[in-house]
């Protein structure tokens, strides 16, 4: 594919430019520094111990922060634009694949039971989720982004429901109560994100000019 094709594909993703604005500049350097510092803190043994002591902290703090550290570092690479990732799909599929792997209860158990798995987790969440997301999300079309977001919301709700409905513990290393709290947290999170998306869809994005049902002429009022 020519670079011209890549550019036109990229322009399909409407708000992409705002995410890419830091590429190469001082902002992206600060962002990369923040990401690297965050990762260093997250891999410290006292930090992994604390965050992995509970399923809730592990799923809703440790995993997202590890991905965030990669994302922040990846912004520095935003100008690295291989033509094979022009539409962002390869990178997004890798990110979804790696993130899904670490949602498997047996993978979470394995990270606690064996050091190689733990190292794999601490490395693959920034490298395999955060960085590919930073490189690929800005290039993805709004259709792809909406699809991913909708799936993430329903997946969080499904996992939350499973945690609440499972007759036994899902993870060998986490307590039943902890699992239930995590289930409630995931269901709440997906509800909040879904609601805010719905509000944005129906009430319009306040950042855009075109919204404002309030500006309808008063003559159209039906009450």
């Amino acid at each position: 594919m020519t670079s011209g094709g890549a550019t036109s594909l990229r322009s399909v993703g409407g708000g992409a430019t705002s995410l890419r604005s830091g590429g190469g500049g001082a902002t992206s350097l600060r962002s990369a520094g923040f990401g690297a510092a965050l990762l260093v803190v997250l891999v410290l043994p006292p930090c992994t111990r604390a965050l992995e002591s509970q399923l809730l902290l592990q799923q809703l703090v440790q995993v997202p922060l590890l991905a965030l550290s990669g994302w922040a570092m990846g912004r520095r690479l935003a100008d690295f634009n291989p033509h094979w990732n022009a539409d962002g799909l390869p990178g997004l599929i890798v990110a979804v694949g790696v993130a899904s792997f670490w949602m498997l209860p047996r993978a979470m158990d394995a990270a606690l039971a064996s050091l190689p798995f733990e190292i794999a987790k601490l490395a693959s969440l920034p490298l395999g989720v955060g960085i590919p997301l930073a490189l690929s999300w800005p290039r993805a079309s709004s259709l792809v982004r909406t699809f991913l977001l909708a799936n993430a919301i329903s997946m969080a709700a499904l996992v939350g429901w499973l945690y609440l409905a499972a007759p036994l513990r899902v993870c060998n290393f986490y307590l039943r109560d902890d699992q239930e709290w995590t289930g409630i947290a995931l269901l709440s999170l997906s509800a909040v994100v879904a609601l805010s998306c719905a509000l944005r869809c129906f009430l319009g994005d306040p950042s855009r000019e075109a919204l404002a049902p309030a500006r309808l002429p008063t003559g159209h009022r039906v009450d």
Partner: protein
Amino acid sequence: MSANRVATAIALVASTLLGVLATDGLRAFTTEGARRLDIAARPRALPVVRLEPASGETLASDALHGRVVLVDFIYTHCAAVCPLLSERFGELQSALRERGLEGQVELLSVSFDPARDTASRLAEYGIHVSADPALWRLARVPDPTELEVWLRSFGITVIPDGRGGFEHNAAIHVVDGRGRLVAVFDLERGRDALDAALAEPRG
């Protein structure tokens, strides 16, 4: 085909492969599921440990060879899942008695809390759950290292619950007449565990 399409296809195949490999072909999503699949595919020879039953005199676990043993892991202070396990073992005990299977199939409840579960405490618990010593043995593994080795061989994870108790895998384990762990069943599948036990060779 563009490089972008090729990369997308490769990423899709790789992600799918990762998912399939990580779940034993979409069959096991949890450690417990993986343990059961592994045991069914590759029966585990169990190491010999010293057991101290409620009756007091210790015996080596290989003294149980020659009959099929259904094993569960409990602690007597348990208020959550162990009473359910013991209820199922009580039903299995009645089934063994009705079908005249004494000497062919035996029930064994192993405590993983040897500090609190002394032989006399186990004897009390046995009376509480109406365990008949001829059919259903309650025992502790007095040596902590041997207990650790046995738990690891079975694949049992015990974690403290922060309130003086434990959480642990709750299942019915089928050990054949040669001392090999051959199958694991949900506690609600006691009948199937018994059928599996009867299908196993005893010698």
